[in-house]
């Protein structure tokens, strides 16, 4: 029947195969090798930082932590392509992007170490902090893009909002509502779905009956692309085009980046309960860091010596950050109260005193003096 709304399957954009071999003509920017080397270095540093974070958790020095192992390419490329004044609306596996944005690793460790100050430093600019309630940040991104658009129409330069989320997040109504708005108002926003095939224990295929997740963008009349999320060249192409479109006032884009969660969901999870190891092994073959290293090797742009130097540098940077994190003194008890309102209500002033008193009593060890 002709009335049926049909869906063409998009082909996944890809330039490098799993071995880092070139699959088709490369875009010209890749011949200026700096960008690719920078991507590689950033990804390696991020992976080291990520593994350190896992180690801190394992040794009782940090709380539950969601590793980004395997997703470094997506996060790195997104952050690299944004300008300083653009706004990143990250999700919890965006450690690589945050670092690329110039946010110290120690901030991220502090956050997962249970300290609000991890989202507080100036380095964050106007970027949003981590967002735990899944997909709620999709609405924030649309709102940020709305603010940008309103101000642009009043004469300010156009900025772009870029919002990351997972495959599971695409099932939550917030995401659909935000896409619908982005399409209706032609907002300068890019939504990037980190499709790592799993939402904790729920595999992609029981998360949605849609053959691709990017086609959720079609529901909102948005251009939507699928890209190999482990291929920095393909990512760069698709994401930069989307950012450019947004910056030119041509509206929003939905990108589905295909990747794989090479780790447990978080350090509190044990993926072997629900995922078989052969799938994991296969995914390791396609991972982004090795792929880019091999490409750079082939091109003669990278060697073992450079690798060693990079690792050493990464360790140095990370150790400094970890030290910073571990040496951060506890917040003050007052901090529990001082940041809720610009104008603190009388009640809260009283409760702050109560909290300090409680604490003193406990310090004194006396329960009822």
């Amino acid at each position: 029947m002709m009335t049926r709304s049909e869906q063409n399957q998009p082909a996944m954009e890809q330039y490098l195969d799993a071995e880092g071999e070139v699959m088709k003509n490369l875009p010209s920017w890749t011949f200026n090798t700096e960008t690719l080397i920078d991507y590689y270095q950033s990804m390696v540093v991020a992976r080291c930082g990520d593994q350190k974070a896992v180690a801190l958790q394992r040794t009782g020095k940090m709380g539950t932590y969601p590793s980004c192992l395997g997703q470094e390419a997506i996060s790195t490329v997104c952050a690299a392509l944004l300008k300083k004044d653009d706004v990143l609306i990250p999700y919890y596996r965006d450690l690589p992007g945050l670092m690329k944005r110039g946010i110290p690793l120690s901030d991220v460790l502090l956050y997962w170490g249970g300290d609000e100050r991890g989202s507080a430093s100036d380095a964050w600019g106007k970027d949003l902090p981590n967002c735990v309630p899944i997909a709620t940040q999709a609405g924030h991104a649309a709102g940020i893009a709305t603010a940008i658009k309103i101000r642009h129409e009043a004469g300010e330069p156009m900025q772009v909002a870029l919002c990351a989320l997972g495959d599971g997040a695409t099932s939550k109504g917030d995401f659909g509502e935000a896409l619908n708005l982005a399409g209706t108002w032609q907002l300068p926003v890019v939504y990037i779905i980190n499709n790592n095939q799993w939402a904790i224990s729920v595999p992609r295929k029981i998360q949605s009956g849609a053959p691709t997740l990017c086609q959720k963008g079609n529901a909102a009349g948005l251009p939507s692309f699928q890209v190999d999320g482990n291929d920095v060249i393909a990512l760069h192409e698709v994401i930069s085009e989307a950012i450019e479109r947004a910056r030119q006032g041509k509206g929003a884009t939905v990108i589905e980046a295909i990747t794989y969660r090479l780790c447990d969901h978080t350090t509190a999870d044990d993926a072997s309960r629900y995922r078989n190891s052969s799938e994991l092994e296969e995914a390791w073959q396609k991972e982004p860091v090795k792929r880019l290293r091999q490409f750079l090797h082939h091109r003669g742009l990278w060697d073992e010596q450079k690798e060693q130097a990079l690792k050493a540098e990464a360790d140095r940077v990370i150790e400094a950050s970890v030290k910073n994190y571990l040496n951060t003194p506890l917040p003050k008890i007052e901090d529990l109260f001082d940041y809720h309102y610009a104008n603190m209500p009388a009640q809260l002033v009283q409760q702050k005193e109560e909290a300090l008193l409680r604490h003193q009593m406990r310090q004194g060890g006396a329960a009822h003096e």
Partner: protein
Amino acid sequence: MSKDLTMVEAVNLAMDHAMAADPNVVLLGEDIGVNGGVFRATQGLRDKYGLKRVIDTPLAETLIAGISVGMAAQGLKPVAEIQFMGFIFPAMEQLICHAARMRNRTRGRLSCPLVLRAPFGGGIHAPEHHSESTEALFAHIPGLRVVIPSSPVRAYGLLRAAINEPDPVIFLEPKRIYRASKKAIDENSEPLPLDTCFTLKVGQDVTLVSWGASINETMEAASLLEGHGISAEVIDVATIKPLDMETILASVRKTGRCVIVHEACRSFGVGAEISAGLMERAFDDLKSPVERVTGFDTTMPYYRMEDHYLPHTDDIVRASIKTLAN
């Protein structure tokens, strides 16, 4: 210069003045543009300020709250309308998890100066879900403010203050009295404070505490009591969160008696907190237990029976007299 305005006109004027004063103030919501809002609260503002500052959104309350958070985090001052309070629930995750926390979570790096307006309460024979009073749900959330005007003058002054406020405010408008009376509002009125109750009538024998539309019945009860030789003090709480217990305490320490009146269902309502606060801090002054005159612990009935649900003047009078028996 002053104008006589109904409450909904005062709400409109407050937004008008706020928009004139600050280009960052942006209105959004369902049907607030050409249509001027289903209660006409935004009437004329789109023509005056343009469709970039008076924005009709798609039908999605989660989104309305979510984009307001995003806009506010970028320094705009969104004033969002939820068409009826009965449709505010999809916004709760955004309000609780983000609006209320953005400042605290970032230690002040980002903040969330949004206002969420919603008409609320019963008594206008509206369809199902159009008459709820769930202010208690928001009052429990740290980081929010909850404000309820009970007259055109307070609607104007409190809404101006809410829009000025650097933190999120839930602004609930008792639609039963949207057009109940006109009051003179000065063109140069100042914002009213968001941290105090208003004493509407001074009295000696019993303190009547209420807010929103029920202030009408409460004031009526106070004059009936006058006829019985009973002098009632009437307090309009106005700002439900943070609660100004000091004003209520001072009054009850004087009168020794208190009746709390609200439309919302009784259990776990705002009245409970006021009563508990009096228990804790005015125990020795209380001559008689604090009474609550409220809606019942039932769903707001459809309109044929809503009158049996809502507290009436005579209920307040009776409860007041009861407190005087002790």
